[in-house]
């Protein structure tokens, strides 16, 4: 007999781990920040490098500095720094530049992070630059997340120096276009599916459901489960109902593909076959159905009658027809 109140040992261990994390952190050694590691160890390969100052950067990169200084992030780093790190201006992200300046910008592999396409700096070190400041909030679960494990660079999706998007410094004009760089199939589904969400119209986007910076859920969802993501907008499906439909209770994905579908209502399979996968009761659910069977095959098919298929609160709604 399954009892939902009992907590299994793994869950108890997991729960106990959380205070341990906090204690370890409180006692643990802080990531080093010596003189050569002023940027959280990022320019550690630039042994002996020192900060060259903003003027040195502008000497060669005047156009880029001017453009960056007009952006909100530029205004923060160059004009309104809030922390000691931000006071380093360009070198807050690129690292101490004295070696770079001395080599007249020609040397590669000098530990200076340029973020250019041909920059040999490993992705982990490049990302660590951004994580110096962006490590709380939505980025709490970045390390070990799907994108981190795939060695995705922050600069694959974000463009700090030039604004391509209205918000969030994306490398492309919209979230959808940014995600399309890798998730071609899902974006194509949104573009060409018969049944889809209003993503192309800009009424919602990938980040309404997914947190690309990591989460505790499958597929980088923004909530604990698929259903909780869906219920944010479709709260009418939340219940609890008097008569529940078990697969609906567990996951909307049992029947729907939120990226779009060739079938109505974003169903993963056309009706009546979708319902017939699980229902072989007598009469019509077990009937293969022919074109003449209008009631079961035409219009909204099974949901012509089983209207409240997501759950019913009607006392006579056991078969979801009321």
């Amino acid at each position, binding site marked *: 007999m399954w009892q939902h109140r009992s907590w299994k040992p793994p869950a108890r261990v997991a729960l106990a781990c959380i205070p341990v*994390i906090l204690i370890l952190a409180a006692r643990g050694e802080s990531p080093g920040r010596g003189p050569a590691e002023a940027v959280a160890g990022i320019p550690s390969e630039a042994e002996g490098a020192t900060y060259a100052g903003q003027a040195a950067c502008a000497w060669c990169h005047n156009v880029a500095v001017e453009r960056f200084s007009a952006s909100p992030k530029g205004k923060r780093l160059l004009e309104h720094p809030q922390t000691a790190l931000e006071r380093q201006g360009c070198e807050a992200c690129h690292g101490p530049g004295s070696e770079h300046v001395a080599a007249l910008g020609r040397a590669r592999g000098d530990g200076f992070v340029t973020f250019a396409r041909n920059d040999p700096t490993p992705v982990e070190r490049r990302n660590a630059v951004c994580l110096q400041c962006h490590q709380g909030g939505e980025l*709490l679960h970045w390390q070990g997340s799907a994108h981190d494990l795939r060695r995705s660079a922050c600069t694959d999706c974000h463009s700090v120096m030039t604004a391509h998007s209205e918000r969030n410094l994306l490398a492309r004009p919209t979230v959808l276009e940014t995600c399309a760089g890798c998730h071609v199939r899902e974006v194509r589904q949104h573009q060409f599916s018969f049944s889809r969400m209003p993503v192309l119209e800009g009424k919602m986007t990938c980040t309404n459901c997914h947190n690309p910076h990591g989460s505790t859920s499958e597929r980088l969802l923004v909530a604990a489960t698929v259903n909780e993501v869906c219920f944010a907008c479709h709260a009418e499906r939340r219940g609890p109902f008097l008569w529940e439909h078990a697969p609906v209770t567990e996951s909307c994905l049992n029947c729907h593909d939120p990226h779009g579908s060739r079938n109505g209502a974003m169903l993963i399979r056309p009706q009546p076959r979708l319902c017939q996968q699980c229902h072989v009761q007598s009469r019509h659910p077990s009937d293969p159905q022919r074109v003449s069977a209008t009631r079961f*095959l035409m219009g909204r098919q099974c949901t012509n009658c089983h209207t409240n298929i997501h759950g019913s609160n009607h006392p006579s709604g056991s078969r979801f027809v009321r």
Partner: protein
Amino acid sequence: MCGKCCGYAAVLAALLLAPGGTAAQWPLRNGVVHGEFEAAWRTFLKRPAPESLGRYELYRDLPPGPVLEFGRLWLITRDEGSLYELRLHQPGQQDQAGVLRGQRIGAFRFEASRTQSPRFFSTSARLLNPVGEPGIFPLPVPRPPPEAFNSAPVRAPIGLRWDFDRVAAEFTPRPPWKIEGSYARIGKRGERPMGMAFGSPGNNFREVLEPVDHTIHDLRFGQSLASDRIRLNLAYHLSLFENEATSVVADNPLTAADHPAQGSSRGRVGLAPSSVAQGFTAAASASLPRRTRLNGTVSYSWRRQDEPFLPYTINTAIDASAQPISPRGLDGQVRTTLVSVSGSIQPVRQLSITGRYRTFDFADHTPRVVLPVRVLSDRVLATGEFVPQRYPHRRHNAGLDGRWRLGAPLTLRAGYDWERWERSRDVRDVGTTNEHIPRLALDLILHDRIHARGSFEHSNRRGDGYAIHPADTELATLRRFDLADRDRRRVRASIDLLPWDAVDIALSYELGRRRYPDSLHGLQAEGERSVTVDLGWTLGTGLNVHATYARESFDARQQSRYRAPPAQLENESFDWVGITDERVRTIGAGATARLIPGKLDLTASLARSRGHVQMLAFNPTPPSGGTSEQHASATAADLPEIGHTLTPVEGTLRYRLSETWVTALRFTQDGFRRNDFRVDGLTPATGSDLFLGDGLSSYSARLFTLTVEYRPWMLGARTPPLQ
């Protein structure tokens, strides 16, 4: 009307201001106000017919004439530390949006926004009588003949409008402590098609409209603290769902008299009950030596629903009042708990290891309800003990991933995941399932010229014995796909090639298969396969072309058995196999050309996506051993193909009038063709049933849009948008 006014005003302003080419800046005492906008004039060469306009517009509003596509005003304070912005998209239209936001660097940020989104279901539905109150669908006595329904007037567009209002603020009292909160209100108003089954005579049903008057209040509050060593997030979330409509009542088109056994003159369907959900989340993260990171999250939420029940039936010939419903409402309570811990460590530079464990508990604390009566479809009274089932479950996930960088170009990833579901055997066919998922992936990056990725995943899910619930009237050999034993494998491969700086080639392949080895009946196998080729070519400095080709297929095989009433005739020759075959092929091409450098640009794209779905069916052995009627019913046959084709074409010619003024002429063609035997040519009165008759209509639309834009920031001026 309001949209047109905004549009006329914007177009007039554009005509007056554009030739001057002056920057829209207004100095104030404390800062400077800037502005930008895009005004447009839409002219249809071909507009879809009214019956297909709903499908064409679907989530948008595209009236011809003038429109302010976009307008924005923003203020930057003199110290350049604060920005305030007002942004409008298509004001006055059904799909308008606006946002007001501001920020003080390092101190606060706020935002208030409104987004409207129409959602059309159809523009060709036929309803005989005008609807009185929302959700009431009366018919005259005596009931009209079928022809009257077929010649009923077309109902105005059936659809919803979603209004999404949100205010959000973020405040930094003292870095790194940050407080944030938001309130969102989602309003859904309108109607959508729904069915009402009457069960008699002849199991008939009628399509009517569900009134939608939903409001969701969503409140979130959180604070976070982030330092070098530790990060903490605390959050609270409240979601209130209110449904103003409780039921839909529709008259039975085939009978005007209530009868205790042969049907009701009308039916009543209950609508989604109002409910509330709230929850707390606490998350912590700690950084330790050796690039070690530990994360922990605890989340607890509860949902409650206690709307009063409707009566058992609306049929006046059935007296169910002797069996009052107790309690008055469900008092439904669901509590969910999530506990998650994860850790990652990089013991050496080339190797990083990540481990995680997560458990999600869905506990249903709804009190047990015993209903002494049931009236299916307001038709026949049945007495007994009807006990609605609850479906509590718990899910555990654990995983370990290792990433090993084998020199600069090559990275190997290996991982193992475990997933366990625990369900109640009292209500489900399987108690516990365990799935083991090992996987392997390889990334190769060579000189920024070749980027190849490949991954393989194989998993087995096994349960602790499948047993159809005794109270269930299902076949004993049925295996439901979400509970059944399953073997799954997935292969993904992609390669990005940059043979020359001007040429970019991307190829990707994906194959997924899922087999259900013990499923004699039910879903037995399913899978998908896709191949995509993308090509980009830069010809000189002024011309870019790109092309794409994608081919996808999805298939599923299921086995069922026709089981004829009145006896449960378990005849193996009545088995039938259903195969669902779906294929989608998409081709596309586009180009960007700089016709006159710095002055005239052309962008063009076209695509064609054709998808078809076919439900095939056959009997492994010819039906035998029953009556001829049963044989006819058990004989499976293919159903006609369902297909749809989308052909979007777009071309834009942009001419730069000055540094900040741009005019553009855009041509858009949308083609949509759908054939679906399930809705094509469906007349309202079909047999004893009554449909809305709102089949999907194919359409073709051609639209010219002339725009005038003033956008200083896009042309390299100093002021970009708010980030």
